[in-house]
């Protein structure tokens, strides 16, 4: 086991995560989680989504409170701009997932972080969503993330933390691999 002389605190409870790993190796069914969101149409391209309950550790769980998210499109799309666009939520999802990963991996590797900033961009040719060109995909052509990290560690160690956070990231996996999506309509 690693023994460290310095105490690092990035505010991540790595001990609890390691205990969870230990527990899930005995009861893998407890590791089955289901995440949920409910989206309500408001008007035009404006909608708001609610997140509160999820399932995990073998039972229904709940966030401390209900979170809501307005989504819309900006005025360049002739919309009212009541919220971020859905694709921007995707960028938020990836950036925050990788950032959480950076903090956790750094904690696990005993690296003290001072600041972490992720700048994320997704390039998109909107001829795709407008149905103008079959050769253009709807989604991002590519996504670029730049991390600016201040930490008590060498450049190589920081790069390794960032690489590991991608390797362990759920959103990174969701975006870089195909996922089966089933959409139904209740009659």
């Amino acid at each position, binding site marked *: 086991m690693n023994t460290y002389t310095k105490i690092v605190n990035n505010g991540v409870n790595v001990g609890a995560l390691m205990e969870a790993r230990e527990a899930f190796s005995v009861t893998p069914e407890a590791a089955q989680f289901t995440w949920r969101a409910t989206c309500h149409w408001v008007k035009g391209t404006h909608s708001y989504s609610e997140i509160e309950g999820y399932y995990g550790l073998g039972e229904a769980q709940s966030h401390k409170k209900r979170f809501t998210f307005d989504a819309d499109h900006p005025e360049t799309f002739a919309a009212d701009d009541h919220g971020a666009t859905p694709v921007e939520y995707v960028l938020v999802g990836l950036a925050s997932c990788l950032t959480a990963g950076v903090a956790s991996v750094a904690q696990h590797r005993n690296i003290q972080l001072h600041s972490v900033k992720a700048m994320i961009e997704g390039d998109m040719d909107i001829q795709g969503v407008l149905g103008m060109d079959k050769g253009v995909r709807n989604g991002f052509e590519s996504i670029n993330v730049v991390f600016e990290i201040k930490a008590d560690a060498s450049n190589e160690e920081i790069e390794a933390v960032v*690489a590991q956070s991608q390797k362990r990231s759920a959103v990174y996996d969701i975006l870089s*691999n195909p996922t089966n999506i089933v959409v139904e309509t209740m009659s």
Partner: protein
Amino acid sequence: MNQTPCFRRARYVSTIIIGGGQAGLAISYYLSQRAIDHLILERGEVANSWRHERWDSLRLLTPNWQSRLPGYCYQGIKPDDYMTMPEIIDFIGLFAQQISAPIQCGTRVTEVHRVDQNYLVQTTQGDWTCSTLVIASGAFNTPVVPDFGRQLAETMTTITPHQYKSPTQLADGGVLVVGASATGLQLADEIQQSGRQVILAVGEHVRMPRYYRGRDILWWMDMTGLSDQRYDEVDDITRARQVPSPQLAGSSERNTLDLNRLASQGVQIVGRFSGVRDHTAQFAGSLPNVCKLADLKLGRLLSTIDQWIEAHGLGTEIDEPDRPEPTGVDGSPRLDLNLASGEIKTIIWATGFRPDYSWLKVPVLDRKGMLRHDGGIVNSPGMYVLGLPFMRRRKSSFIHGVTDDAYDISQHLANYLNSTYRRKCVSVA
């Protein structure tokens, strides 16, 4: 399934060893030294996997000087070369002769049961019982193919490394090689050189130069003690045992085989083959990161070696340190491949191997079908395994790595036999 297997006609021997390859023979050597009666059951011939489950051009990844078994080592004139398959078959065959290994060839084990305090070993040549059992049947019995890959077999030519012999067996046209460990890289290399366009799908991998600072990388692994690192010394042994085999190849030119070299030969490098939709293969967008991870890991390995050299004052006697070029990743590697377009004619699954325990009717497997063991001591009294990756040491699955493991296991096995013998004496008294 509830039929109780019976002992009728079963012959008794203290130890049965399943598998007559380097691992089974190595422990046979130590059991003979300890005067423990034993028998090796071999489904085919000595070194069977090396004879029948390898492609034609394959050479060992380990240099000749590293080919050693208990009391036996390479004696030829090319210590820095890498054995061809006929050479390794001879090498192991000669060892079997030299130690007069008690081996019964042509005997496939069909089932093993725990019966009373013994194991009942049923084979194509009759039954045996034994007090102790050593599973030395290898870690690479069955090629692993992803689920979606099995469905592709209906519409494409798909083969595994066990079926692959040489490029001449392949149709003209493109070949998708899936997997970037030693097997995938070597096949991609020779198939591309045969004039067929290769697309190589790359997931997580372990990059290694053949030579570093003038010595074979495996020489450094030995010298620095990395090869001998024990399974109970690493932080996460489960993960360590799942690390893919390093990107190495044995050749007289001692060339490094890596993604940069393959790309320069015209091989198309793409991300992990992650699924098929509408007859289109989809490759993961994670290629830059898996290459980065491998480059960083390689950098840490070379730094460890540099530090060892520094600490031992060898800096002036050997080549200067250097670092290989980072793996070049094309700005936007392709994410899909239409499998109906004719661009590729063949898919080769170099996606790993797993051991086959379908004959093992003792509840010692975990939910993934792998043996539950502590450094080769299986979770059932008197049962042992040899030759699995990082079983007791990092070198466990290498030919030179099996000797130390076999010695340790023979010691535990001998103690076990002694203790059960003593228990029987006590209960009789």
